[in-house]
């Protein structure tokens, strides 16, 4: 998973840069204190960076949504909405997984899903990007690709990888093992098969992502 400092630096010329990056660069030593700080002094413009870096999807999604609603800059708004879309999808998966686990193991079941999904964060974002979300236009898509993989200019990156992603989805649709996994997941998590197929497709082959 790309850590918070990398995520932060991917924003380039943005008001976050300044000394905020120093705060997140020391996150390993100050994580617990950051949690306390943002709890006492909410700042949705900044706290979501910390939340995403710690795979804390729910407050991240909430902060991003609030931030997107208030954002004047269209690019900022798009990127934030896109992240919100990704985190919402993750939340849904976690909720469904947790719900199922409570049913199977009872209310005292250990809650291990956030960490598991957190390591595949960008796979989920890829899915969110490719789904038919209203906010997912070309501009915000390339912004996400650029920030997620930090491969330099998106102009060099998108033409190479977007066809590969589409190709991968097509292959998944004709791969029995993927379809079987997707159907199982669909039944267990009460999600449409088309959604779980895309999820299985991306999360079952994480090495594909550069």
């Amino acid at each position, binding site marked *: 998973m790309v850590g918070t400092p990398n995520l932060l630096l991917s924003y380039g010329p943005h008001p*976050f840069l*300044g*000394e*905020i*990056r*120093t*705060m997140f660069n020391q996150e390993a030593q100050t994580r617990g*204190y950051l949690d306390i700080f943002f709890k*006492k*002094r909410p700042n949705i413009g900044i706290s979501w960076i910390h939340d995403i870096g710690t795979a804390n999807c729910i407050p991240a999604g909430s902060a991003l949504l609030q931030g997107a609603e208030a954002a004047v800059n269209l690019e900022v708004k798009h990127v934030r909405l896109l992240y919100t879309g990704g985190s919402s999808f993750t939340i849904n998966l976690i909720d469904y997984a947790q719900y199922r686990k409570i049913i199977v193991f009872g209310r005292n079941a250990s809650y291990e899903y956030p960490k598991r999904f957190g390591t595949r964060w960008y796979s989920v974002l890829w899915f969110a990007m490719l789904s038919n979300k209203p906010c997912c236009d070309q501009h915000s898509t390339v912004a996400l690709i650029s920030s997620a993989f930090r491969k330099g200019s998106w102009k060099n990156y998108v033409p190479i990888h977007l066809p590969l992603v589409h190709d991968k989805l097509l292959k998944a649709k004709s791969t029995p093992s993927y379809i079987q996994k997707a159907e199982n997941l669909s039944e267990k998590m009460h999600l449409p098969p088309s959604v779980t197929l895309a999820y299985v497709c991306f999360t079952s082959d994480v090495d594909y992502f550069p």
Partner: protein
Amino acid sequence: MRKPSLTCHDLILPWFSGTCGHEEAAYSLAEHYQDFTSLVALCHRETVFPPEDNPNAERIQSYIQQFKEDFTTELFQWYIQHGGYS
């Protein structure tokens, strides 16, 4: 320890904020009065980023361990204010 209404941040820091050779005295006063605003400011008078290049990096870590939340609150607030995102 009771914090005075007029802190050393208000009175003393300006006198020691330059390179006049009294930095250690400024640190001692700020530590004594637990004036974390001054301590954070003193710790970031030189290189801020990357944090490992800050000559006061070890001092910052020791303050975090010593003063915990009281210090980190001022520390984070300083980063936010100086990041232009307050």
